[in-house]
């Protein structure tokens, strides 16, 4: 099982690649809606990509109110 830090780092890298944003511009506590300039449907798109990468399924309700990478990483980490 990867460490929480590694999971978080992978999420940041995947998000940067998916939305074509320089990786160094993303920080764990960033609001990904603001930093990536995305809407809720694009966030769901990212989520699907992350689920496929980590091979987990996150129910929609688990993500209600989640806006930063660190919290998102925590939700994924407990399912790994």
């Amino acid at each position, binding site marked *: 099982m990867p460490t929480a830090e590694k999971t978080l780092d992978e999420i940041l890298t995947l998000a940067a690649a998916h939305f074509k944003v320089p990786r160094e511009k993303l920080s764990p506590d960033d609001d990904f809606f603001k930093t990536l300039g995305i809407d809720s*449907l694009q966030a*769901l*798109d990212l*989520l*699907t990509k992350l689920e496929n990468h980590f091979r987990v*399924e996150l*129910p*929609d*309700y*688990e993500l*209600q109110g989640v806006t930063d990478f660190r919290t998102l990483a925590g939700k994924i980490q407990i399912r790994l």
Partner: protein
Amino acid sequence: MLDLRQYTCLAAALRDALDRFSKEVCLVEAERDREKLRLTYSDFKEVALPLARALEDADFDPNDRAAIIMTNQSKWLISAYAIFFCGGVLVPLDYKLTAAEHLQLLAHSKAKILVVEYHLWRAIMADPGFQNIGTKIVLVTEAPLGTDLAGAFRWEDFKRKGAPDFVMRQKDDVACIVYSSGTGGRPKGCVLTHENYLEQCRSLTAWYPFWPGVRYLSILPTNHAIDFMVGFIGPFVCGACVVHLRTLRPEFVRDAFVRYPNDSEESGARPACQVRRASVVEAGPAEFDDRCKSVTDSSTPQHQAQPYAAA
């Protein structure tokens, strides 16, 4: 469809629909690409009436109020029917509100009963205002066995044998109290009568008729006035089918449109356990544009449509 002019309340119309279309499928529920549930009108009745009886036995009386806080799913509609069957007033609350807001609206509406999904109940229990909750009976859906629900009951266990007494309501009796979102100030409870809904339903079905075999994909929250009518009352009084997806990820919503049932030769899946193509959906303009784009954009990797697994 039923002739709604002959009814004085929603429960009476729904009750007749359950009998008239008994063999038709009324609800399909899918979790991503896995079908979880399929109910005929007859099945729906079999699930709803024991709940109505349990509500009656719990002293839920005509005109008492019952709130529902749930995402779009079969238990929302089943609970609503049971509440109407007992002559109750339904208070559909927005599941996207915060726990504190839920508690405020529960207090304001004076709901005697609350039907709520487990994850939402967890949030409500964790709110500081939970200690003052005045709701007498709480039914929690999908709660893991053995979980401490702080005195609430598991929805799945809350049923009683024996036929419940049907409570007929009149046209000007209150059917629902629907709270506005509060974008223009404080949320306001809009009091709607059975006549309001019956007339609205007649108008809807005159313009957009449903019939047995039509499948309606329910996306807007069911507490929302539109989905309540277009994704529940309208299809039901016409014998149509409502499809609930437990996720609103674009790729799965898209699949619900394009997916046709495969015949039973594949993996032995029974045709009766496959989601058939959704025919009707309601959505806001931006959402609709996005869904269309995701279907037509050839650069979007196409999610591989597979037959829904048997429930």
